[in-house]
C-alpha cells in the first residue's frame, strides 16, 4: 500500500475543479449571451475540463490501493486570518470518498450540460440557464472537496440558490414559481438546522475542519466516559436535519417532486449529481457526530422514506413524478444504509444511482422532448420510435430495479445486507424495521419502474398524433444517455466490491467487522442477495402481469382499494397537511408581522416621511401630528431645522458670508472660552 505522492500540482488541479466552473459562471453571466451560440460552450467546456481533471486525479488514487487514503491541503486560502480559535481558512480534503465524488459529479454534470445544449435549444433564457447550471456544478464540486464546514456550508447554500433559480427557470409559469419557492423554503429549514449544528460544533471544538473535528470526537467521548454528551447529540441531529432537507427525506421530502417544474436537465442535476447527493455526502461526513441512538433515527427516517416514497411512486402517472418519488425512495436507501453503519454501501449506492438516475431523467427528458407531454397514459409503444432512448432507459431501469449484473444490484445489495447485519446484531424489532422496510421498498421499486417502462415504451400507442410526431433526439442528447447507460450497466463492476466496500473501510466511523460480526456479515450477504433478487423478480413479474399481459386490471385494483389508492395517489396528503398546519401557522405569524409592519414599522417610516413634508408646511404639519406624542420630539427637531434652513440657507450669498464670519467669531470664542 504505497502512498501516492500528492504534490502541489495535484492540489492545484483539484482546486481548479470547482474554480473553473465558477470562473465560467462569471464569464457566462457577464458576457456569455453576447458570444457565439450564446456562450453555451463556455460552461460546457469548463465542465469538460473540470471532469477531466477530476477523473485524472481519481485515476491517480486508484493506482494505490489504500483504504486510509487521505490527503489535505490545509489553509489553502486564509479567509479570516488569526489565532486558531477565531480563524477561518479554506482547504481541500481529498480522500477516497471525495475522489470518487469529484470524478462522478464532474462527469455527470458535464454530460448534463451537453444534454442541455440540445434540450434547451431556443430557450428564452438559454444563456443564463447555462450560467446557473455551471454555478450549480461549482457548488457541488466545491462541497465535495471542502475540508471544513464553513466552505462546505457556503457551497451548500450556493446550491440552494441555484436550485431556486433553476427550478424557477420557467418563472412565467405560476407552478414553477411556486415550486422554486417551495424548494428554497423547505430546504431552508434543513439549512438553518445545519448551520446551528455547525455553530454548536464550532463553539465547543473551535474548528471547522473535518479532520480536526473527527479527531476531537474520541477525545470528547473519552472525557465523557464513552457516552455522547448532549451537545454533540444535538449537533449531530441538527446536521442530519440539514441532510434531511437537502436529500428530501421524510418529512421534508415535499419539495423534490415539485422541483420537476424545472427543465429536465435541472431535474437530472438535482436528482443525480448534486443537491440530494449533498445530503447523503453530509451524513457520511458527519457520521462520527451521530450517537448510536441518533444512528437508529437516521436509519428509520431513511428506510421509512424509502417505502413511503415507493408507494407514492406506484400511483403516479406523470413520468417525471414517478422518477422523482423513485429518487426520494432511493435516497432513503442511502440514508438508511449509512444509518445502520454501512457508510460505504450508502455512498456506493449514491454513485451508481447518480449514473442510472441521471440516465433515466435525461431519457425521460428525451421522451418529453419527443412527445411534448409528461403523462404516461398518453404515451406507449415509443420503443420503435426512440430505440436509443428506450435501450438506455431500459438498462437503467434494470439497474435501479436491482437485477443482477447491473449496477444497482450491487449497491442495493450492499445496503440490504448492512441492514440485515444491523438487525442480527441487535435483534430488536426496532433494529429490524429498516431491513423490513427496505426489502419491501426494493420490490416496489422494481414494480413501479417497470410500470414506467411498459407504459411508456411498450404496448400500442395510446395517442396516435403524439406518436406520429415522436422522433429520436439529436446526438447531444443521445450521447450522454449512452454514456450514462454504459455506467448503469458497468458501475457495479467498476466500483463494487473492489472500490467502495474495501476502500470505504477507511472512512471515518466505518467499523470493520471481525470475528462473529464478520460471520454475521457473510451470512447476511447471502440472504440479502437472494432476498433482493427475489423481491426484484416479484416486482418485475407483477408489473408485467398488470401492464403487459393484462392479467390484472390496474384500474380495477385502484377501484377496489379506492380510499387507500386516493390517499396514496395524493401523496398521503402531506402537502395538504403542511398547508393546514405549518403554512397556516406561518400565515398567522405573517399576519402578526403585518400588523407590526402596518402599525409600528410603517409608523416609523411615516414619521420620516413626515419629517420631509413638515419642512414644507411647518404649521399645518404641527397641527396634524401634535397629538402623536412620540412623533413630537423628532417633529420639533425637524421643524427647527426647517426654520434654521430658512434662516441660514437663504440663497443670498451675502447671508452666507455673514454666517461664515459669525461662525469664525464663534469658533474663536469657543477656543478663548476654553482657556
Amino acid at each position, binding site marked *: 500500500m504505497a502512498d501516492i505522492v500528492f504534490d502541489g500540482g495535484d492540489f492545484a488541479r483539484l482546486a481548479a475543479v470547482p474554480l473553473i466552473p465558477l470562473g465560467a459562471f462569471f464569464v457566462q453571466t457577464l458576457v456569455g449571451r453576447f458570444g457565439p451560440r450564446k456562450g453555451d460552450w463556455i460552461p460546457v467546456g469548463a465542465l469538460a475540463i473540470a471532469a477531466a481533471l477530476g477523473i485524472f486525479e481519481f485515476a491517480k488514487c486508484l493506482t494505490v490501493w489504500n483504504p486510509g487514503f487521505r490527503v489535505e491541503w490545509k489553509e489553502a486560502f486564509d479567509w479570516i486570518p488569526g489565532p486558531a480559535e477565531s480563524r477561518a481558512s479554506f482547504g481541500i480534503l481529498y480522500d477516497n470518498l471525495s475522489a470518487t465524488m469529484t470524478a462522478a459529479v464532474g462527469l455527470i454534470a458535464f454530460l448534463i450540460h451537453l444534454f442541455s445544449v440540445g434540450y434547451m435549444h431556443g430557450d428564452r433564457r438559454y444563456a443564463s440557464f447555462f450560467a446557473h447550471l455551471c454555478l450549480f456544478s461549482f457548488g457541488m464540486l466545491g462541497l465535495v472537496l471542502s475540508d471544513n464546514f464553513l466552505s462546505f456550508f457556503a457551497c451548500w447554500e450556493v446550491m440552494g440558490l441555484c436550485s431556486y433559480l433553476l427550478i424557477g427557470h420557467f418563472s412565467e409559469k405560476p407552478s414553477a414559481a411556486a415550486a422554486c419557492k417551495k424548494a428554497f423554503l423547505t430546504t431552508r429549514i434543513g439549512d438553518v438546522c445545519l448551520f446551528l449544528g455547525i455553530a454548536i460544533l464550532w463553539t465547543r471544538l473551535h474548528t471547522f475542519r473535518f479532520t480536526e473535528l473527527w479527531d476531537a470526537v474520541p477525545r470528547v467521548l473519552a472525557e465523557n466516559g464513552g457516552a455522547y454528551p448532549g451537545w454533540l447529540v444535538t449537533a449531530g441531529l441538527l446536521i442530519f436535519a440539514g441532510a434531511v432537507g437537502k436529500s428530501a427525506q421524510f418529512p421534508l421530502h415535499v419539495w423534490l417532486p415539485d422541483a420537476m417544474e424545472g427543465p429536465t436537465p435541472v431535474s437530472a442535476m438535482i436528482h443525480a449529481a448534486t443537491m440530494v447527493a449533498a445530503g447523503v455526502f453530509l451524513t457520511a461526513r458527519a457520521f462520527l457526530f451521530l450517537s448510536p441512538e441518533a444512528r437508529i433515527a437516521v436509519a428509520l427516517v431513511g428506510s421509512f422514506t424509502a417505502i413511503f416514497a415507493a408507494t407514492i411512486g406506484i400511483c403516479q402517472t406523470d413520468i417525471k413524478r414517478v422518477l422523482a418519488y423513485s429518487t426520494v425512495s432511493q435516497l432513503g436507501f442511502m440514508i438508511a444504509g449509512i444509518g445502520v453503519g454501512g457508510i460505504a454501501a450508502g455512498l456506493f449506492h449514491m454513485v451508481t444511482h447518480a449514473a442510472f438516475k441521471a440516465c433515466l431523467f435525461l431519457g425521460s427528458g428525451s421522451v418529453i422532448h419527443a412527445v411534448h407531454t409528461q403523462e404516461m397514459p398518453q404515451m406507449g409503444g415509443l420503443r420503435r420510435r426512440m430505440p436509443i432512448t428506450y435501450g438506455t432507459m431500459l438498462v437503467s431501469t434494470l439497474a435501479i430495479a436491482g437485477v443482477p449484473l447491473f449496477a444497482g444490484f450491487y449497491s442495493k445489495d450492499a445496503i440490504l445486507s448492512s441492514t440485515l447485519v444491523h438487525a442480527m446484531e441487535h435483534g430488536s424489532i426496532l433494529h429490524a424495521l429498516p431491513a423490513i422496510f427496505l426489502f419491501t421498498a426494493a420490490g416496489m421499486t422494481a414494480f413501479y419502474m417497470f410500470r414506467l417502462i411498459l407504459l411508456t415504451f411498450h404496448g400500442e400507442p395510446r395517442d396516435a398524433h403524439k406518436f406520429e410526431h415522436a422522433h429520436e433526439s439529436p446526438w447531444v442528447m443521445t450521447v450522454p444517455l449512452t454514456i450514462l447507460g454504459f455506467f448503469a450497466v458497468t458501475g457495479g463492476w467498476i466500483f463494487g466490491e473492489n472500490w467502495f466496500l474495501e476502500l470505504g473501510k477507511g472512512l471515518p466511523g466505518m467499523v470493520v467487522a471481525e470475528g462473529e460480526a464478520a460471520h454475521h456479515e457473510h451470512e447476511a450477504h447471502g440472504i440479502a442477495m437472494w432476498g433482493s433478487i427475489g423481491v426484484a423478480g416479484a416486482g418485475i413479474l407483477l408489473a408485467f402481469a398488470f401492464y403487459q399481459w393484462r392479467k390484472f386490471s390496474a384500474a380495477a385494483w385502484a377501484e377496489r382499494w379506492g380510499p387507500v389508492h386516493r390517499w396514496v395517489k395524493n401523496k398521503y396528503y402531506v402537502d395538504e397537511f403542511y398547508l393546514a398546519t405549518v403554512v397556516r401557522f406561518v400565515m398567522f405569524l405573517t399576519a402578526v408581522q403585518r400588523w407590526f409592519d402596518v402599525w409600528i414599522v410603517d409608523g416609523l417610516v411615516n414619521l420620516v416621511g413626515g419629517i420631509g413634508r413638515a419642512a414644507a408646511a411647518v404649521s399645518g404639519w404641527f397641527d396634524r401630528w401634535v397629538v402623536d406624542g412620540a412623533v413630537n420630539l423628532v417633529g420639533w427637531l425637524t421643524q427647527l431645522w426647517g426654520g434654521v434652513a430658512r434662516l441660514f440657507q437663504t440663497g*443670498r450669498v*451675502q447671508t452666507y*458670508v455673514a454666517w461664515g464670519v459669525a461662525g469664525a467669531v464663534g469658533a474663536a470664542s469657543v477656543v478663548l472660552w476654553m482657556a
Partner: protein
Amino acid sequence: MSLGAYLAVATALFVLGLAMMIARRNLLYVLMGIELILNAANLNFVAFARYAAPAGGEAALRGQVFALIVILLAVAEAAVALAIVLHAYSLFDTVRPEEPDLLRE
C-alpha cells in the same frame, strides 16, 4: 508710528472689507470688499516685516515677498471675479448680490 498703529489700520480695513462684502448692495462693491481684506493682510505682512524683524534679515524679506505675491493674487482674483460677475449680470440682468437666489434651502 508704532507697529500697533499699522495693525489697527489693518484690522480696521479687514473689518470694513468684511462689512462691505456682507452689506453692500452692488456686486462691484462686494469685490472691492475682497480687495480690502486682502490688503489688510498685506498691510499686516509689511508692517510685521518692517517692525518685528531686523531690517534686511530673511524674516523681513519673507513678509515683503508675501505681500507682493498677494498683490498679484488679488489681480488674478479680480480678473476672474469680474468675468464671473459680468456673466451673472448678462444672465440675471442685475448687479445686486442678493438677487440671484434660484438655489436655496
